[in-house]
């Protein structure tokens, strides 16, 4: 997610083209119910990149087929998000960060986590000119306009840093041009993009949320509870096949990278092999639980509680969201 140099960069889609896209998607939506039992559309929350490598592997290696599901991976566009597709029933599963999912549930759309891949938080704050982000009270800090970064807002309030949040569409140009003092970044994505702009990064100017009591899990696969209740077995098989995909990816990083690059090229994503390799390594690393050192593929009740407490405390959630609410039980 959060690709900064991809399709979402700067571009201004023309009106005509947006209309065409809508028409096309409506057509899909119309066809879907005909093959509902076996067919499933999975929409990761961002354009193709190594963040979704496990799903590409599961599809390419036929794990989904073996699980009896005809999965199609459809990526979102800048104007048509993954959640929009879920809400409209065009996609049956998507990936979300835990905090995002909790926000959506709190807004009244019940979601079920059918597979948790991330075991660690990847968010960082990077500040300019070697300054410690914690010493920049009231600084202008870039945040994704599409709504990641809940933890950062909690942290800014809790630690009385009073950051001025500058919402940006999806890239780092504001930061590179010096228009903002710091920016949020994902350790597997924007962090490397910043390195790629020649920015010197050190422990001094990088704040890692996971090291400061904000280690909240991120990516997981979610379905609406409504769909889940009707397709429990399909959900279980999809999750199992996706998990196989991730495990295969961890064992075969080179081949996995090839598959990722295939998707990247097909979708004209503005990235490169070096960045995707770094992303794959980091995403796989984030899947290892800090305590057990293993890929656990489970939502941790303590992390759900931590996230809920933080977000309720900073009034980002109207009520506590529980572990049970998000899981199959």
């Amino acid at each position: 997610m959060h690709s900064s140099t991809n399709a979402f960069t700067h571009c201004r889609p023309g009106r005509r083209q947006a209309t065409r896209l809508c028409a096309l998607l409506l057509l899909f939506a119309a066809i879907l119910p005909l093959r509902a039992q076996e067919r499933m559309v999975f929409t990761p929350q961002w354009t193709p990149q190594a963040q979704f490598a496990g799903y590409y592997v599961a599809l390419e290696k036929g794990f989904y087929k073996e699980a009896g599901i005809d999965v199609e991976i459809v990526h979102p566009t800048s104007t048509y998000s993954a959640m929009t597709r879920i809400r409209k029933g065009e996609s049956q599963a998507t990936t979300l960060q835990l905090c995002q999912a909790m926000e959506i549930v709190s807004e009244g759309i019940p979601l079920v986590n059918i597979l948790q891949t991330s075991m660690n938080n990847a968010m960082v704050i990077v500040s300019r000119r070697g300054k410690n982000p914690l010493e920049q009270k009231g600084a202008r800090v870039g945040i994704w306009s599409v709504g990641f970064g809940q933890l950062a807002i909690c942290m800014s309030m809790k630690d009385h840093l009073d950051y001025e949040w500058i919402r940006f569409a999806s890239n780092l140009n504001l930061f590179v041009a010096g228009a903002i003092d710091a920016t949020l970044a994902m350790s597997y994505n924007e962090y490397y993009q910043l390195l790629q702009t020649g920015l010197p990064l050190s422990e001094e100017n990088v704040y890692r949320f996971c090291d400061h009591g904000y280690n909240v899990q991120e990516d997981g696969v979610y379905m609406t509870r409504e769909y889940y209740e009707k397709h429990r077995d399909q959900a279980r098989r999809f999750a199992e096949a996706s998990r196989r995909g991730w495990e295969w990816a961890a064992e075969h990083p080179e081949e996995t990278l090839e598959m990722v690059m295939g998707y990247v090229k097909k979708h004209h994503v503005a990235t490169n092999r070096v960045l995707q390799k770094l992303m794959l390594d980091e995403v796989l690393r984030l899947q290892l639980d800090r305590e057990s050192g293993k890929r656990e593929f489970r939502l941790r009740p303590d992390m759900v509680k931590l996230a809920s407490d933080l977000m309720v405390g900073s009034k980002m959630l109207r009520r506590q969201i529980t572990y049970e609410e998000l899981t199959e039980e």
Partner: protein
Amino acid sequence: MKSPLHYFKKSLSTKLSLWIVIFTAVVLVTALGYMFNVSRHAIRQEAENHATEILENTTLRVNAILERVEVATNNTDWLISRHLEGPDSMFVYSRRILENNPDLNGCSIAFEPDYFKQKGRYFSAFSLRSNGEIHTTQEGNEHYEYFYMDWYQLCKLLDRPVWTEPFLDYNPEGIYSKDMIASYCKPIKDSDGKYIGTISVDLSLAWLSNTISAVKPYPNSYSIMIGQGGTFFVHPDSTKLFYHTIFTETLDHEDTALAALGHAMQRGEEGTRQLVIDGQESYVFYKPLGNTGWSVAIVCPESDIFGAFNRLSRAVTISVFAGLLLLLLICIQIITRELKPLRRLADQAGVIAKGNFDEALPESKRVDEIGQLSQSFSDMQRSLAGYIEELKQTTAQKASIENELKVASDIQMSMVPRIFPAFPNRPDIDLYASMTPAKEVGGDLYDFFVQDEHLYFCVGDVSGKGIPASLFMAVTRNLFRIVAQQGHTPEEIATQINLILSHDNEQNMFVTMFIGCVDLKTGHLDYCNCGHNVPLIDGQFMQIKYTNRPIGVWEEGEFCGESIDDIRERQLLIYTDGLSEAENPQKQLFGEQRLQELVAGALALNSEQVIKMLQDAVEHHRDGAAPNDDLTLLCLKLIKD
């Protein structure tokens, strides 16, 4: 097998040739090295000037167009600020900019959310040139929240006009076209100076890309352009465009030179750098593009710039090397040929050196140094043969003389008493004497004998050395025996010997003598010193009144004697000047003072020990030098019963 070094040492021609070649090589390498260095510098300078000029021209052209865009924007922006009451007029302004400026692709006049209450949250008047027509719309909506876009926010946050990083525009099919766009954005402010929106003008950069790509001063050179974030916006490898930055490779493997170039370009510097790009040594000439934050660079492989130079350098180096090798061979050949007679001469000389003096030398008609050497050698051979013959005769003669001298020496030594103790039956007489000639035979003498309880003794030194002195010594010694046995006093003995020796003494030889006679019963000593070194008694030089003249000088006149009452238990040492005047290699004399000190310290020794001690002292003083005079010593001590 012999080593090349051995051959080198042995062969004069090789040695000479190598020195010539080495010297020539040093001169050539220095001169060529200097020339190569200067040329290389000049070529580099030329390349730099060339590239700088091209970059200068390109940036001038680009800047002119960019400035036109900036001027066009500035010309509209005041109109907007003045007519904020009518939002719909923004569509007219946005359209008019495109109409007045055919270079421009699009123009947005966008406002803060909810700025115009009647227009709702989104208001951005957007005109786009497409297929020669200008389409104007309001472009903001919930899917396109323009106020989060860079082009909108950059100038707002920086509070100044800016150029955005170039980006790719959509084409109607939703696939990226190759058309690169950049926007010039300027904040719009109301009459209070408060920010209310952004005017953004889009410029297609296809021409820029083409202009920069076309810059190709060398066959394999290419041009690149990077943005503020280091992203490639112009690059010959199209897969890198927009997807790679100048730093991407450095994430995979460290490349500080490349990173440094990237940073310098990002800082808007202008200059030249030498680094390895894609495994190729290259020169990079870079220059910023106006105030866009973008930077253009020309990458020239070193082989392109220095290609002809390197080829020339190689050719020259090979020629020089080959030339030096040829020079070496020619030198060896010429010098070998010139030195051939010398070698023959050396061979012949070797034969002659083995003793074949009759070996004929090669004929030489040369008049140069070698010819002269040959002639001189021939002369030397002849003289050498004669000399050797002469030497043979002389050697034979010398051997005969040496043999005779040996016999003479034996005879002379047999003349003086040499068996000690001299009087085995007389324990009261402790006497020891020694005589060491400087040559085979000497001119010193000593003698002693006991007659009627009297001990007669003498020590003498004949003038001169060698055979004449030895003969004179023999005569003197015999005379002493004969005269002394007649019971004379020492002065009478001296007078009589003088009479005989000075008569018919045509050689004018003389002898210094110390003659003594001791009454063994009383220890009374009579003595006569005839010009001889003063003896020592108990380590002190004797007090002598009458030194007298040496014996044999002239007939007339008596010799005077003296006496000491009792010399029993007293040590008497008589010596010749071979002791006191013994010289070391530095010609320093042994000296009387040293003699006196030595003897004074040896009063407890017996006569033989005293003599041996003095002999050792003289030997030590001479320190290897040949004896310069005969050395005779006599020590006497009478012991009381």
